[in-house]
């Protein structure tokens, strides 16, 4: 196997003394869609947020183990966290447009990075909105408030906002949980196209979604990685009884 994009090495994580992740070891391949799934409270969102260090913002937590991105420890002392987050984009469960226009939202990350070249900004704007399958719907009203968009459009705007930074990795935390089936379909379609360029890790909002979009899937239960396998294997012939119970709906 080629070198993994991301290597998780015995990662444990706690809020206070409550360990929500225990000894997770996992390799994530480049240019594919990896799915973290499992029942609520199994630690998948926490794991996702560890990969771009968003958990740094939460007080009273502790972490053990290492996370390597392209072989480099992202919790190492030589890491510049804002730059790491430019490389590892994040899309949240709810569409969270920032106040301001559609254009300002997409270009926010680039503005923070100090990029002022207008032709480059215009190019990024069109490219990222196109990749997020939103360009056709908004190209005539780029300077309207972002909150004028529908929920589904807002979520694709948030994806475009992450893509504008041309990240290596895109993390998506139940990105379609608040969306109707048609919007969900559009988001999923854009993810298929995106994996040519990006490594995508997604926490799906249902098992069906996991089965639809995953290249590899990792099943988590109460903070432990139960099974990690290519989609076909995991959803048709799981090795672990607990995985089987969960994917066939007998869990509970």
């Amino acid at each position, binding site marked *: 196997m080629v070198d993994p994009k991301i290597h998780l090495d015995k990662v444990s994580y706690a809020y206070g003394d409550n360990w929500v992740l225990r000894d997770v070891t996992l390799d994530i391949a480049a240019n594919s869609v990896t799915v973290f799934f499992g029942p609520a409270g199994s630690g998948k969102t926490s794991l996702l947020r560890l990969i771009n260090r968003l958990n740094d913002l939460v007080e009273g937590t502790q972490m053990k183990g290492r996370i390597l991105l392209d072989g480099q420890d992202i919790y190492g002392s030589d890491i510049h966290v804002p*730059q790491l987050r*430019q490389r590892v984009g994040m899309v949240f469960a*709810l569409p969270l447009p920032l*106040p301001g226009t559609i254009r300002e939202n997409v270009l*926010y*990350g680039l503005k*923070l990075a100090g990029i002022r070249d207008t032709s480059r900004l215009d190019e990024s704007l069109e490219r990222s909105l196109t990749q997020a399958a939103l360009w056709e719907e908004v190209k005539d009203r780029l300077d309207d408030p972002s909150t004028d968009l529908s929920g589904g459009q807002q979520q694709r705007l948030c994806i475009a906002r992450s893509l504008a*930074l041309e990240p290596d990795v895109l993390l998506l935390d139940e990105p379609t949980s608040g969306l109707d089936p048609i919007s969900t379909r559009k988001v999923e379609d854009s993810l298929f196209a995106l994996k040519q360029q990006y490594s995508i890790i997604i926490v799906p909002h249902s098992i069906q979604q996991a089965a639809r979009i995953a290249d590899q899937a990792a099943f988590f239960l109460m903070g432990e990685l139960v099974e990690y396998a290519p989609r076909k294997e995991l959803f048709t012939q799981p090795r672990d009884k607990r995985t089987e119970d969960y994917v066939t709906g007998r869990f509970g």
Partner: protein
Amino acid sequence: MSRYWVQRLGFALLGLTALAVVVPMLLVIGTIVVEGMGAISWEFITAMPSDGMKEGGIFPALVGTLLLTLGTALVAIPIGVGGTIYLAEYARDTWVSRCIRLAIINLAGIPSIVYGLFGLGMFVLFLKMGTSILAGALTLAIMTLPVIISTAEEALRAVPTEFRTVSASLGGTRWQGIRYIILPQALPGIITGVILGLLRAAGETAPILFTVAAFFLPRLPQSPFDQTMALPYHLYVISTQVPGMPLRIQYGTALVLLALVLSMNLAATVIRSYFRRRRQW
């Protein structure tokens, strides 16, 4: 008597007490407006006082108050807004941040005359600024800090946490999130706090008694190191220290001061409600 009637009677009584709070205040405002209106003229606002302040206008006092308020703003806004950003965005809940909160509560409670003595001891005498606009503005600025900080902090905390997270997730540093998202969103609330603080400074007399105010000085200050007349002190002087002062001029002065302060109050209220209706979250 039935319980229902007890309740009816009780509620009516409560309504009456609320009226007893508000009506006298409206009477104060009404009386001053009615009695003072006659004195107001272009000359009253723009002329120097003359004949032992019994004639002429209140121009130097009005200008003095405006200058003092401006000076207070220049000092209090950076300190207040900076301090608020620290409390709302940087400080964790430790004993240090509790000390800061306690200090703010304490600053809010210190009597205005004690601020005056502090200003006299530190700025006028120890730092040798003399009785001057500078000394007065510095004293007033410290006094207004707690008002600005508590209002502005509320405004910063009202901005949803998610915006901070989103900004960080796009590679923003903490300061960039504050600079580009939090501050612009909290700006109306911050402005409201600043105005509320400044209107307190504009109306206060005790802190400026010994730090800046001149009894009678019929010219405009030339530099921050000059003394100046000021409206609230002027009202105090003409209503207690000058025998035979025409009542008309006293009421006129009170009206100008009241109008200045109430219009600032109105501005704060309007800004707050306007932006509360307009914001997107």
